[in-house]
C-alpha cells in the first residue's frame, strides 16, 4: 500500500469518526461508542492484501466527502415500493425515524431511544457483544456511531404474531450523507419471530454511505425467519452485516437478495453455539452496469449436531463484478455436523466477472460437508424446448435466467415478500441485462 492511499484511508477513518462524535445519543451508550472509536481508529485500513477485502476496493468510499445527515425527512415513495403487509412497521428515512409512516404498537419492539430500564439492560447485555469487531472493521464504526436503533425482544415461549418490518429509505436530499443503522434481535428460549429488513433508495442519484449492522441472539429452541432485501439503486454505498448466535436447537432461516450499486458489501456471520442448532441461508445477487456486489458469509460450527444449508445464486450482467466468499468453519468439538454450501453464477456478458470462493475448514472427523461453486451455463435443452414453443432466443434466455434465481424465491414462506420480489425481478429482467 502506498502512502497516498494510506493517508486517504486515514482521513476517511478520522472524518467518519468525527461525524460519529457529532451524533447525539443517550449516555448509557457512551461506553460502546468509546470502544468502537478506539477500535476503528486503531484498525489497519484494508488493502489488496487484506484477505477479507481482497476483491473489494474501498476507493469509492474514501473518495466520498461525507457529511452527517441531520434533519428528519419524509419521503413520498411510489405506492408499490413497500410491502403491503400487516406488520409492526418502522420506517427510517436517511436514518431518521419516520413516525407517520410507521406502525409499531408492540411491546416487543422499541427504538433504543425509547427503551425502558429493562429493555436498556437487554440492549446493554447484547449490543456489540454478538459481532466480532476484529473480523468486521465496519462494525466498530457502527459501534462508534450508534445513537439509535431497533430492539426486538421476544420473551420466553412467546411467538410474535406479526412480522417486524424495518424499512430504510435513502433519498437524494441526503447527498453524500452517512447513515448508520442498527438493529438488535433477542429471542429468548422457545420464542419465535419474523424479521423483514428492506433497504431502498428512491432515486438513482442517491450517493450516500449506509453502514448497517443487525445482531441476532437466538436462545435455546428459538426460531427466526429473516428476510433482508438490499434494493438500493446505482450510486449508493452499503456496507452491511448480519451477526447471529444460535443456542441449543435454535433455528435461523435467512433469505437475502441484493441488487448491485457502486459498492455493496454484505456479511453474514452465523455461529452455532449450542448443539442441535440449524441455519439455512439462501441468497440472490444481481449486479449490473459497473456495479460491485460482495457477499461474505461465515458459519462457525462450535457445537455438535448442528446443521447448515446455504445456497447462493447470482447473475452478473454488463461490466459488473460479484464476489462470493462462503466459509464454513467446523471446530474440533462439532461432531455430527451437516453442512452444505452451493454457489452458482450466470454471467450474461463477456465483461461480467465473479470471484467465488467456498472455504471449508474442518477440524472434527465425524462430519458431512459438501460445497460447490460454479459459473453455470444456461441449459441448452431447455433453450431448445422454449424456442420450439415460439419464444425468441432472447425471451428464452431471459426466462431461464429468471428461473435460475426464481427457484430460490418461490420457496419463500412469506407470500408478500415473494410477490414483491417477483414483480421487481420482472421489471429488472425486462431491461435485458440479465438474459445470458
Amino acid at each position, binding site marked *: 500500500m502506498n502512502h497516498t492511499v494510506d493517508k486517504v484511508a486515514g482521513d476517511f477513518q478520522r472524518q467518519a469518526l468525527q461525524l460519529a462524535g457529532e451524533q447525539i445519543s443517550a449516555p448509557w451508550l457512551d461506553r460502546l461508542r468509546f470502544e468502537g472509536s478506539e477500535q476503528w481508529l486503531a484498525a489497519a485500513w484494508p488493502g489488496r492484501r487484506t484477505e477479507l477485502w481482497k476483491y473489494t476496493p474501498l476507493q469509492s468510499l474514501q473518495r466520498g466527502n461525507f457529511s452527517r445527515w441531520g434533519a428528519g425527512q419524509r419521503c413520498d415513495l411510489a405506492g408499490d415500493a413497500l410491502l403491503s403487509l400487516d406488520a409492526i412497521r418502522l420506517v427510517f428515512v436517511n436514518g431518521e425515524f419516520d413516525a407517520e409512516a410507521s406502525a409499531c404498537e408492540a411491546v416487543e419492539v422499541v427504538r433504543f431511544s425509547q427503551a425502558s430500564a429493562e429493555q436498556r439492560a437487554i440492549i446493554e447485555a447484547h449490543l456489540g457483544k454478538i459481532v466480532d469487531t476484529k473480523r468486521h472493521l465496519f462494525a466498530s464504526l457502527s459501534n462508534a456511531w450508534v445513537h439509535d436503533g431497533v430492539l426486538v425482544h421476544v420473551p420466553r415461549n412467546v411467538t410474535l404474531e406479526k412480522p417486524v418490518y424495518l424499512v430504510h429509505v435513502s433519498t437524494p436530499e441526503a447527498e453524500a450523507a452517512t447513515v448508520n443503522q442498527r438493529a438488535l434481535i433477542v429471542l429468548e428460549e422457545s420464542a419465535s419471530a419474523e424479521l423483514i429488513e428492506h433497504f431502498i433508495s428512491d432515486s438513482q442519484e442517491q450517493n450516500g454511505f449506509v453502514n448497517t449492522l443487525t445482531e441476532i441472539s437466538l436462545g435455546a429452541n428459538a426460531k427466526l425467519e429473516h428476510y433482508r432485501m438490499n434494493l438500493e439503486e446505482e450510486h449508493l454505498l452499503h456496507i452491511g452485516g448480519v451477526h447471529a448466535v444460535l443456542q441449543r436447537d435454535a433455528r435461523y432461516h435467512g433469505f437475502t437478495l441484493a441488487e448491485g450499486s457502486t459498492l455493496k458489501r454484505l456479511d453474514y456471520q452465523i455461529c452455532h453455539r449450542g448443539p442441535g442448532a440449524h441455519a439455512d441461508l439462501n441468497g440472490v445477487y444481481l449486479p449490473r452496469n459497473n456495479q460491485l456486489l460482495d457477499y461474505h458469509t461465515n458459519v462457525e460450527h462450535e457445537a455438535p449436531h448442528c446443521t447448515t444449508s446455504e445456497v447462493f445464486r447470482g447473475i452478473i450482467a454488463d461490466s459488473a463484478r460479484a464476489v462470493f466468499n462462503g466459509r464454513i468453519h467446523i471446530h474440533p468439538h462439532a461432531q455430527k455436523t451437516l453442512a452444505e454450501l452451493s454457489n452458482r453464477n450466470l454471467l450474461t456478458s463477456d465483461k461480467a466477472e465473479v470471484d467465488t470462493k467456498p472455504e471449508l475448514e474442518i477440524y472434527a472427523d465425524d462430519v458431512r460437508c459438501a460445497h460447490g461453486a460454479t459459473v453455470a451455463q444456461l*441449459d*441448452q*435443452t*431447455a433453450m*431448445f*424446448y*422454449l*424456442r*420450439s*414453443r*415460439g*419464444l*425468441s*432466443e432472447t*425471451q428464452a434466455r431471459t*426466462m*431461464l435466467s*429468471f*428461473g*435460475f*434465481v*426464481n*427457484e430460490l424465491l*418461490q420457496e419463500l414462506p412469506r407470500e408478500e415478500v415473494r410477490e414483491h420480489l417477483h414483480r421487481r425481478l420482472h421489471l429488472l429482467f425486462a431491461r435485458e441485462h440479465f438474459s445470458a
Partner: protein
Amino acid sequence: MLDIRNLNARVEGADILRNLSLSIKPGEVHAIMGPNGAGKSTLGNVLSGRPGYEVTSGEVSFRGKDLLAMEVEERAREGLFLAFQYPVEIPGVSNMEFLKAAVDARRKHLGLEEMSSFDFMKLARETSKRVNLDAGFLKRGVNEGFSGGEKKRNEIMQMMLLEPSLCILDETDSGLDIDALQVVAAGVNAMRDSERSFIVVTHYQRLLDFIVPDHVHVLAAGRIVKSGGKELALELEAKGYGWLEDEVA
C-alpha cells in the same frame, strides 16, 4: 402441408437419416413406427430445428415455405409443433408464464393481439381440464416434479393451446397407462380436422387403436422402408420389425 425430399441428416458426426422422403397433405394423420434407434426422434428434432442436428442434403417445404431456412422459433410460430419424447423440466419458470409467452408469440405471428392475462388464465384452466391435469400444475415450474404421464399431458395441453398446423407426437404414448392414453388420444382426435396434420411416432399398435392413421410408415436405419395403410400397423404388431430389416438388408 409437409414435403420432405431426400433428407440426409447427421448427429455428432454420425449419419442418421438417409434419403428420407415423405409427403403429408392437410388433414392427414401419418404414423411412423420402427425399432429403437431407427431415427424417429431425430426426424422430429431435425424438423423442429434442434441445434446439433445437421442437415447434409435434401429439402423440406412446410406450408409452401422452406422449413430448413427457418429458426427454431419461426417454425413453431409458423405452426409446427413437436411433442417431446422427453419433455424438459425448467425449475423456477412457471408453467403459466411459459404457456402465455408461447401463445402470445404464435398469436403475434398470426397478426392477433396478445391475450389478456385474465382470458388466458381462463383458457389455460379449461384446457388443463381437457387433458385431466389439475389447474395447480399451471402454477408450478414447467414440468418440475411432474410424473411421466403428467409431462406428456402437459405437452398435449400446449398443443391444444397453440393450435398448430402440423403436430409431431414423439412417443407420447410410451409410459402412459390406458386412461392417460385415452386422454391423449381424445385430445388429438378433437383437434383433427381437414386442415391440421399429424405425425404420430409410436412403438406400439395400441395408440393407433385410438388415433386411427391414414398412413403408416416403417422407419429403419434412417429411411422409410415400408409404407401402407392402417393395417400395416397390425402386421407389425404380429411380426415385429425383424422381417423388414432383413428385407432391406
